[in-house]
């Protein structure tokens, strides 16, 4: 029986705590008596017969007819799937998307359906490479569909491939992938890594365009999403749900398949990363020492390549199919079961170690803007109820924060960093002054469509993710970050954790309470005030 999550009160006997620092880690001693550490629950047991469970879900959907009953010869079937941003790290082969797509295709073949398109629902993310597609859907599916042009990626800038479905009662435009909208059935294959994923967000976001996205990806919505992990209190989700209603009303028939994973995040040599420090075996300690020593001597580019080659052993804990909202309720419950940790009371300082990866830099660099989104967009929002850190409190993160960007994946980020952030770090100001120019830039569109670049507007969305946290916290401190870069982000650089605490004392006093979010593995704090 896996142990639930746990909040440790740091006392004098507590060993130093592990902090991620990009492609490295460090152990930091937190002040005794006023610090606590939140550990994730241990991985839930996985479903043993994955394929059996998938078939069962397809045959016994929730609030919908079984999949075979929805399939008929001559129909247009479209299968959309989550892109490379999920799961993190990438899953060992076979990916569950491959398993589900194969099961769906088997049923489609049986029903005599021969017009099938498979679309990667990447919204404004970068296109996936051939290798990444093969990893997600498997060689068999790839070789059968890609050469004929039936396996491809959603293109939010191709006017020919989009359909405008109307507006929500709130006046939000709904525009989605034409093939998906015009199909007799849209099967969506999802991986629900965090509670934010899935539901109507799969289709209304994953298959839409800038015209739609701008209605919920903006500073206003982001400020009023408290948090993204709690869909009932998230404007972002409410907007997506309204759009889902428009989809339904315009006759788009969606068969949603959602899966949840356990938090078995790192392969065995890196077990210590998920363990509680006082439970480290001598072997764990040796591995930690050996790894950090080696990493200190490794050029960080090489270290990055090593980390990005990690494939996670995470496994499926549930699969459910059927009507979007009903399915998503169960999925969310399953995610919470794995990730929720009860925490009493807020804290003055929230500390976090930022790892090498985020949904937006698979096989790439966690550039400064993504460091921001990991800290203020994701980790800060890993709560239900109230934020972990009190209003006016401080966030201290550890990350080298080098001014490094992948020129292929993040060309607009480079310009955003040099041009927009040099001008303002205020999400509201930049959305007025700069967003349009980047969103409509022909060059970024070209790179998004033909190369492997995130859309021109994407860095803005990343910055908007942090809107609530920026407003909520009075200081954000980056330990070990490149000072110039950190200042450009509007944060404060510190060389050590002690310095950072010293700097934070300006806003939280001499004896603040400290809470460390010990993640990854992922967890959501259920904060009661």
């Amino acid at each position, binding site marked *: 029986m896996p142990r639930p999550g746990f909040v440790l009160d740091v006392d004098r006997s507590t060993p130093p705590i592990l902090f991620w620092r990009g492609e490295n880690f460090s152990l930091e001693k937190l002040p005794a008596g006023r610090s606590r550490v939140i550990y994730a629950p241990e991985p839930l047991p996985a479903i043993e017969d994955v394929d059996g469970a998938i078939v069962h879900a397809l045959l016994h959907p929730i609030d919908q007819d079984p999949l075979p009953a929805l399939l008929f010869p001559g129909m247009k079937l479209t299968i959309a799937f989550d892109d490379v941003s999920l799961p993190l790290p990438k899953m060992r082969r076979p990916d569950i998307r491959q398993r589900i797509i194969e099961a769906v295709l088997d049923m489609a073949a049986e029903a005599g359906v021969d017009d099938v398109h498979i679309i990667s629902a990447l919204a404004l993310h970068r296109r996936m490479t051939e290798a990444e597609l093969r990893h997600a859907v498997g060689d068999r599916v790839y070789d059968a569909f890609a050469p004929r042009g039936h396996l491809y990626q959603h293109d939010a800038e191709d006017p020919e491939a989009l359909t405008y479905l109307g507006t929500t009662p709130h006046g939000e435009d709904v525009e989605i992938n034409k093939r998906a909208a015009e199909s007799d059935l849209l099967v969506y294959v999802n991986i629900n890594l965090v509670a934010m994923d899935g539901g109507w967000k799969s289709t209304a976001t994953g298959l839409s365009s800038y015209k739609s996205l701008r209605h919920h990806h903006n500073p206003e919505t982001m400020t009023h999403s408290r948090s993204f992990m709690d869909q009932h209190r998230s404007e972002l989700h409410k907007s997506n749900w309204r759009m889902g209603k428009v989809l339904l009303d315009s006759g788009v028939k969606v068969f949603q398949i959602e899966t949840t994973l356990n938090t078995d995040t790192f392969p065995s040599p890196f077990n210590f990363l998920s363990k509680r420090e006082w439970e480290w075996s001598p072997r764990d300690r040796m591995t930690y020492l050996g790894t950090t020593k080696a990493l200190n001597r490794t050029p960080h580019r090489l270290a990055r390549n090593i980390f990005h080659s990690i494939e996670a052993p995470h496994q499926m804990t549930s699969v459910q199919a059927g009507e979007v909202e009903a399915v998503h309720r169960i999925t969310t419950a399953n995610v919470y079961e794995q990730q929720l940790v009860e925490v009493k009371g807020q804290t003055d300082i929230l500390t976090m170690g930022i790892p090498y990866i985020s949904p937006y830099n698979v096989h790439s660099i966690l550039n400064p803007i993504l460091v921001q989104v990991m800290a203020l967009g994701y980790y800060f929002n890993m709560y239900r109820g109230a934020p972990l850190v009190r209003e006016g409190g401080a966030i201290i993160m550890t990350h080298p924060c080098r001014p490094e960007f992948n020129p292929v994946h993040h060309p607009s980020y480079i310009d955003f960093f040099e041009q927009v952030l040099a001008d303002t770090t205020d999400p509201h100001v930049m959305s007025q002054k700069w967003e349009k120019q980047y969103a409509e830039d022909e*060059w970024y569109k070209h790179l998004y469509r033909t190369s492997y670049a995130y859309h021109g507007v994407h860095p803005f969305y990343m910055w908007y993710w942090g809107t609530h946290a920026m407003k909520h916290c009075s200081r954000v401190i980056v330990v070990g970050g490149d000072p110039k870069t950190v200042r450009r982000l509007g944060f404060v650089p510190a060389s050590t954790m002690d310095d950072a605490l010293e700097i934070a004392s300006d806003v939280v006093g001499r004896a603040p309470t400290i809470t460390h979010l010990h993640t990854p593995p992922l967890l959501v704090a259920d904060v009661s005030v």
Partner: protein
Amino acid sequence: MIAQALAGRRIAVTGSTGFVGTALVERLLRSVPDCELVLLVRDGRRTPAAERVRREIFKNNAFDRLRTEWGDDFDATIARRVSVVRGDVGTDGLGLSPVDRSTFASCDVIIHSAASVAFDSPLDSAVEINLLGPMRIAALLNEEPARADGRRAHLVAVSTCYVAGNRRGNAPEELVSEGPFDIGLDWKSEVTAARRLRSDTEATSRTPDNLKRFREGARRELGAAGAPALAEKTENLREAWVKDRLVEAGRSRAASVGWPDAYAFTKALGEQALHETKGDVPVSIVRPSIIESALAEPFPGWIRGFRMAEPVIISYARGLLKEFPGVPEGTIDVIPVDIVVAAIIAVAALGPDEAPRITQVASGSTNPLKYRTLVDNVRDWFTAHPIYDSHGQPIVVPDWNFPGRGRVQKQLTRAKDLVTRSERALQSLPLRGAQATWSARLEERRGDIERALEYVELYGLYTECEAIYQVDNLMAVHERLDDDDRAAFCLDPRAVDWPTYVSTIHLPSVVQHARVKMAPGKTVVDRRDRLKRQVLDPARHVAAFDLENTLIASNVVESYSWLATRRLDTSDRIRYVARTLREAPGLLSMDRKDRADFLRYFYRRYEDAPVEQIDIDAIELLSQLIMTKSFPEGLRRVREHRALGHRTVLITGALSFAVEGLRPLFDEIVAAEMTIRPDGTYSGELSRVPPTGETRAQILADYCSAEGFRLEECVAYADSTSDLPLLEAVGFPVAVNPETRLAAIARKRGWLVENWSKAEGAPKRLLPIGPLVSEGERRRFGGDSRRGSRG
């Protein structure tokens, strides 16, 4: 008395665009209200004489005072009182039209102030202008019929005190040829010798050996800049060589017969020649010493030109000239320009009968300025008002030790040798961008030292000169003036209080004139910002970009390698790499010799490559090679230009399909085009001359004329001297990551220099080879994976 004497007279002035000339014209117009002026002015290289008069004389700030006094009548009054004749004192008959000839000759007074005053002018031009100029005027006056009163115009010739030559002690107001130190030179044979020397030197400069040297020099400086650019540079070098030889010849000839330089030498012979050939023409000679900024008229500190003491003073204030030779107790004979002008006008007003034959205008005998006083004043002033360097730091002026000339020269020569050697060493390294600017800075430093050496050689003699110029005639003229004249035309050298003059009038004017930095703050940034603003001004029309090393850190060999190996398996890739590495040195040297030849040779490798495969692979090439090696700032700049409404043009020697991915950035892409065979493969041959070197300038010019744009409103970005023709053709050149030679040129000409780099974090691949593609993809085009990589 003066104003009345000259009232109603017509006065011709030569050299009116010069320092003394401008002051003279202004003073005559202002203080002699009823005279008319005839200005003899040479056509400029581009501007006709009348336009030069308007721009170079009446727009000068000397006329600010008159503009205020006359208000709206200024232009009308000028038009009424001043007429311009086109002519040149360097030509026999002054090159005047018959009408202008009589206009000129019928004047009452001719003030001849045209001269080749540069101390480093070539011997022959100094002879033509300084020696023969006055004589030609006299000859013309003699040829024309005399005026109604039977007399000929009064010729007032401006000369210099230094005609006295290198001597100590008193120099009286008499002709040198009539004085005790005359060595009996014959001016005619000097003229013949100088002209002969010009043609001999021209001939020598054209010997094959010399021409080869100039060509090599041009190539060293410009690299593969293309035939027209190299030809132009070679010819410039030849002309510069001829000039140097003639300057040198002038200096040594002057020194050999006892004058400090060719200027004083030719002026001395000019006086002699004039007196021998003047015939009926009444002549008065006015000899000023070193003329400096105005004491009071038209306003204190007024000065034009920048050639005598000013560069020395500024070099000293910049800390460049740490020593300057001179005798501390010696006299440096300086005279403000308004005193000179007053003296000239007074001589003209006295008329041919009353005026002294020779009038010296100098301060040495009545109100001497000691060299030490000057130096002390200059040092004190610059200590209180330092010049700031480009980093915003004040420059501390050195103490002056009054060393001998030999020692200073030796020091400077040694410094120059050191800098030259380091510069050579740096230039031989393949540097780019920021490093290349070290070398450019060194070159600039060498230029500074060379200039300092020249000053020491040229002006050192003047500071060491210990002649005292007598001003008895000048004082006699002064005595004859009434009080009104003395107020309006002060010609008394004793009126100058030297310390006040140096520190409150002259130096402030010199620093203002030299536009040096007198306040803290970084100029480098200011200058860059200013240039950048100009480049990104909506008024520009077109922005042309080179590709390799300007927008991406890659080249045609890399894109070929990437395309050729994309569908190869590992073992074939290794073989390919080994072969290419073997060929690399040969390819490099070929590229350096001639870019177009190299491209033609290299592109043969694409022979037989299937068009369809290349087109598909070229899309991946954008992501995997071009974007990884791109300079984000460069791509941003292209888009900034587009956003401003400029047309953007890419001009590259790369093949069109290899740059296809960049199409959305540009309105026009001019690339090498390869012909396609009917079977759908590339032929390996280009359909036209690849756009390299001077062709690029032509392409842009053609584009502009076709689209109705002007080249002066174009911006061009390039990285190497082979693009020099393109950069020179446009109004706003930008050197991007310049190689050493281009960095030096850009610095010299004040071009904007950008140092763009790849994105931090861009993958660093040793070889331009993409990741292995899947088996199926490899065999997609007929399984013969080696098609497209011939050889």
